[in-house]
Structure formats: structure tokens, C-alpha cells
């Protein structure tokens, strides 16, 4: 009872355009990494003393973590709220989440001045007054949780019966721990910027930053699951259980409904932030217009589109809106970490090409890994020997 549970057809077609371009990015990125580790961060990035955090923190870490939130969102729906109909999309969501976090750590290793000390906050020296300390511990613990949640798929793939049974017993615990850890570190990523009141634009700086980041992570998680399941069902048809494929539209409509509600709360919360700081006068400035674009174009608009799609049972519109929502979350994280950070600087940071290459290569690497796993392990469909429905 070992080997691939699912047929691997695409194995022979190695030289697809996607593989070639992705492979090129990965190769060039390795070259850039060599320069970065021999000559320093300044040799490959536009980072400086005024802008110590750039694309790798703003996109790879902040967006990476937010977009990986599907793991805990769907796990909570299935295990805690017992919405068992979402079971078919749980494993891909957890895999996306796990890989998301894993590659966030990879990006951090490139960005940190001394990456080999990444384990210090866990094993050596404890700066407990730091929000970053919380983030470090939580990412470490949450990676472990997500691994436990995904490990049954590996056990099924290899046919390790005993290991699988033990792992499934840990599932609920790992799920609850995962929700707690996610609540805290998703919001902590926003709390990081609480220490920069003089640098972050007042329309984005708010004591509510932790709440903004937490609530928007749920939105990001739901939308990423919609997006990921749409793409998976398109590109991994052979691996997908046909029964699941049929029910997918209904599940996506359910997710869209939840996302629409969350977006509505988020929209109002954003305005409470503005009211709290009495920043109405800033809305007329150019940064104010940019803020309005984010709030109306990427929060309220997707909220209404999701609602309309749910009402009309329009799955295509749900899928389109998920792209818009994900783009909005990315825009928000970049606004906080890069665009709104020192918005008034005369020499504002713009990433160098080599920073983009590393970022794209890491995304490609994540997609390649996702594909490698779903073409081998029972992720998009149940293993014929192990029915998930008889668990829990």
C-alpha cells in the first residue's frame, strides 16, 4: 500500500513554458543569493538606513502570511464549527498554508542579516517585550501545527497506518492551537508597526492595526482558498475527485458569503480607524485618494461583488472577486510596509530588479512544491484506502 495514490500524467512534460520560465527565475535567484551572502544586502537590494524593510518583508513575509491564512480558516470551519461539507478543500487549504509559511521563512533567511541566528529567539535569547518575538515563536509553532495537520496525507501516501492513526488524534488539538496562534501572529504583524507612529502615514497608522491585520487575514484566507481551489481544479483535473469538482461551486459560494461579511466589518473598521485618529482632513491629499482607492476599490467593491455573486449563485463572479480581494490584501500590506512608510521621503524606496527576481523565484518554488505534492499525495482527492469521512 505505497506509492502514488493518483496517476502522475504530467510527469513526462517537463519542458512546459511555465516550468522553463519558473526554472529560469529559480536559477537567476540562486545567483543573486550568492552575491547577497558574499557581498551583503546592499549589493542586491535598494534597502538603506531610511528603508530597512523592503519587498522581501512587505510582500514575501507580510502578504505571504496573510495569504496563507486559508489553512486556519478552513480548519476552524471543518473541525470546530463542524461544517463537514468543506472537508474536500481542507487539505489543499492546509497545504497552501503550510507552504506559505515555509516559504515565508525561506524569504526571511534571505532578508535577515545573520540568518543562521533565526533560531535564537526560540532557543537562546528571549526578548519577550518584542512583538517580533511573538511572531517568531508563533510562526515556529504554527508551522509545527500545520505540519501535524497535513502529515496524515504523507502517512496515507506512504501507507504508514499506525502513524496516520496517531496523527489524526492530534488533528483537533493542532487545529485549535493553530487558530489561537494565527489570531495572535496575524494581528502581531500589524502590531509591529505600532512602534512607527512618526513614520507610517496616519491613515494607515492606527491603534487598531492588529485588528485590521487579523480581520483582513480571514478575508485573505477565504479568498485564497477560493482562488487556489479554482486553479487546482483547472490545472490538476486528473488528481481531483470528480464528486468534489461538482460540489466545488457550492462550497465557493459559501466561502464568498463569509468573505463578504468579513469585508463589510473590515470596511467599517477602517473608518473607525480614521475617525479614531480624526484624520478626515487627510482624505483630500494624494495619499488620502490612495487610501480611498484601497477602502472603496479593494474592500467595499469586493464585498458587494461577493454579495451579488452569492445572491445570483454566480460562481464565476466569486472566482473573479477572489482575485480582486487578494490583490486588495496585497495592496494593504504594501501600503503599510512600503508605500505609506515614510511616504514623505524625498528618496523613497523602490525595489531593485534583483529583489523582484528573488520574490518571484520563491513564489515559483512554492508552486512547484505544491504541484509535486498534489501529484503524489492524497490532497485534492481521498486516498482509496483511507476515507476521510470515517474520521473525526
Amino acid at each position, binding site marked *: 500500500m505505497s506509492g502514488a495514490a493518483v496517476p502522475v500524467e504530467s510527469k513526462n512534460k517537463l519542458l512546459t513554458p511555465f516550468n522553463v520560465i519558473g526554472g529560469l527565475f529559480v536559477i537567476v535567484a540562486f545567483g543573486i543569493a550568492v552575491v547577497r*551572502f*558574499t*557581498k*551583503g*544586502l*546592499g*549589493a542586491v*537590494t535598494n*534597502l*538603506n*538606513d*531610511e528603508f*530597512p*524593510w523592503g519587498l522581501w518583508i512587505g510582500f514575501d513575509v507580510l502578504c505571504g502570511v496573510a495569504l496563507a491564512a486559508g489553512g486556519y480558516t478552513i480548519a*476552524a470551519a471543518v*473541525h*470546530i*464549527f*463542524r461544517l463537514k461539507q468543506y472537508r474536500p478543500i481542507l487539505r489543499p487549504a492546509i497545504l497552501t498554508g503550510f507552504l506559505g509559511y515555509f516559504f515565508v521563512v525561506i524569504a526571511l533567511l534571505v532578508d*535577515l*542579516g*545573520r*540568518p543562521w*541566528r*533565526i533560531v*535564537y*529567539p526560540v532557543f*537562546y*535569547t*528571549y*526578548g519577550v*517585550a*518584542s*512583538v*517580533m*518575538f*511573538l*511572531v*517568531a515563536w508563533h510562526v515556529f509553532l504554527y508551522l509545527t501545527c500545520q505540519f501535524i495537520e497535513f502529515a496524515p496525507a504523507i502517512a496515507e501516501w506512504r501507507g504508514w497506518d499506525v502513524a496516520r492513526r496517531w496523527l489524526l488524534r492530534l488533528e*483537533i488539538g493542532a487545529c*485549535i492551537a493553530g*487558530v*489561537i496562534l494565527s*489570531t*495572535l501572529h496575524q*494581528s*502581531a504583524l500589524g*502590531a*509591529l*508597526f*505600532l*512602534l*512607527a*507612529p*512618526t*513614520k507610517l502615514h496616519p491613515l494607515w497608522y492606527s*491603534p487598531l492595526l*492588529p485588528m485590521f491585520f487579523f480581520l483582513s487575514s480571514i478575508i485573505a484566507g477565504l479568498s485564497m482558498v477560493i482562488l487556489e481551489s479554482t486553479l487546482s481544479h483547472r490545472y490538476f483535473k486528473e488528481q481531483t475527485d470528480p464528486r468534489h469538482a461538482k460540489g466545488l461551486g457550492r462550497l465557493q459560494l459559501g466561502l464568498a458569503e463569509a468573505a463578504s461579511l468579513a469585508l463589510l466589518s473590515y470596511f467599517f473598521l477602517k473608518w473607525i480607524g480614521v475617525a479614531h485618529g480624526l484624520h478626515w482632513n487627510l482624505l483630500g491629499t494624494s495619499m488620502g485618494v490612495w487610501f480611498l482607492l484601497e477602502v472603496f476599490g479593494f474592500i467595499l467593491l469586493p464585498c458587494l461583488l461577493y454579495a451579488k455573486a452569492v445572491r445570483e449563485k454566480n460562481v464565476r463572479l466569486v472566482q473573479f472577486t477572489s482575485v480582486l480581494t487578494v490583490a486588495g490584501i496585497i495592496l494593504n500590506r504594501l501600503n503599510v510596509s512600503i508605500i505609506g512608510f515614510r511616504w514623505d521621503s524625498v528618496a523613497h524606496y523602490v525595489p531593485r530588479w534583483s529583489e523582484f527576481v528573488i520574490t518571484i523565484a520563491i513564489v515559483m518554488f512554492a508552486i512547484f512544491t505544491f504541484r509535486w505534492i498534489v501529484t503524489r499525495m492524497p490532497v485534492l482527492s481521498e486516498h482509496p484506502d483511507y476515507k476521510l469521512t470515517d474520521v473525526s
Partner: protein
Amino acid sequence: MRAKGMLIDTTRCIGCRGCQVACKQWNKLPGENTTFFGGPGYQNPARLSPKTWSLVAYNELNTKNGFDWVFLRRQCMHCNEPSCASACLVKALEKTPEGPVVYHEGKCMGCRYCMIACPFDIPKFEYEKAIPSIRKCSFCFDRQQQGEGPACAKTCPTGAIQFGVRDELLDEAKTRIYVEPHRYVQHVYGEHEAGGTSVLYLSNAPLDELGMPKPEELGTTPFPALTEGFLSMVPLVIIVWAGFLGGLHLLMQRREEIAAAEAAAEREIQKTEEDQS
């Protein structure tokens, strides 16, 4: 322990840059390749860097006493409750009871959060090094431990930089304002800014016009308080979430069990009814 401080009186500074040189000498910091840059002409170099921890910034502007040069010596402010130290997740930055905020190179990961957190933009990162560190003024902590004052204060020929007990220097600063009110802006920069700093400034022009952050933007609460609220919520969130989610899970599970049992009982009744008929 009475924390040490430093009083910098810009009206006494002649812009000789002796402090800049003394800092480089004592801390064995290399020179910089500098170029002429637009703006305050005679300033050199343009900004603080990993190699320059102390810098005399040249400003020409309208002061209380007419258009004049004002020399503002920049360095780490050694906040009473530093933002950088609260940001550091590995305790590489530490506030000592004596006053200095010191850096422990052996712990630093190079995450650069201290640079984001510092409102005065003091910690600098070695972007050109394969094994980089954060570099900044240490308030000559090594000299202080031997009972000496910082190299910059020691070398200042005009008494523009004075080293001593912070409380006493604060009294001194206020006395100077009181005695010569026409000479100074009526404000000791650093007394309350960001919760108070070891370095105190007296000047004949508002410091925010010389490139320092505005006092009203910095506020008077220490920066670490900005994240304390969030961090104090953490244990509460863990306990409440664990109880709520665990309870909800058990509740939902129980509900399913009851539904299953009821369904089974229903079938049982139907079966007996069928048997009877």
C-alpha cells in the same frame, strides 16, 4: 543608580567637529569617502552611518537672534525607555541602568526592526557586509564603566557637550533658560520627548527645524507603551480562545452524537412498528 545624561547646548557649539573625530578615534571607526552635497554646505559627512555615530549637522536658518548658523550634534538619544530595545526580539539592544543603550553583537539576527522602531533613526545597518551588524553610539559605555565621560564630551572645547547625572543636567538646562531667556527656545528637547531621553538639547531654534522629529509627533509616552497593550492581551486571547474553541468543538461534537442517537432510536421505533404490523 542615578542615570547619566548629556546636555548639548547648540548655542555654545562652534562647529569644530572635534567630537566627531574623538568618537571615531575612541570607537576605532573608519573614515568615509564623502562628496560635496547640496544643502548645509560645510557639513561632512551627509548623515549618520555605521561608520559615523556622531555628526555635527550644519544648519543656516532664522534663529531667535536672527539668521545664523546652528550646529546640531546628532547621536543616539539613549531614551529612558527605548523603542529599539523593546523592538529587539533577541535582547541585542539593552537599556542599562547607568543610562546607555548598548548593543550586543553576539545576539543580533539582523532583522532591522530596531531601525523601524527608532523615532530618531539612530541604529544603522552594515548593508555592504556579508556578516553585518547594527552600529550606533554606545554613549561610550566602556569609558563610563571606568568612571570616564564619553569621548565627545571630554573633547569638546567650548562646553557645548556636558556629561553628568541626567537630573542635574536637566536643572542646569532650565537654569540657563531662566538666566538667559532671550538666548534659548523655552524648551529642553529630550526632557519628555518619547518619554524622555538621556541626551538633552538646548537651542536657539526649535529642534524640529534642525531635522529632529517634532515634539508633538513624538509625544511624551515612552514608545514601548505603544505595543504593551497588544502584548498584554496575548495571555487573555490564548485562554479565552482555547476555552471557547475547545468548548465549541465539544458542543458541536455532542450535538452530532445526540442527533445520531436520536436517528438510531427513530429507526428502532420504526422497525418495531413495522414488526408489529
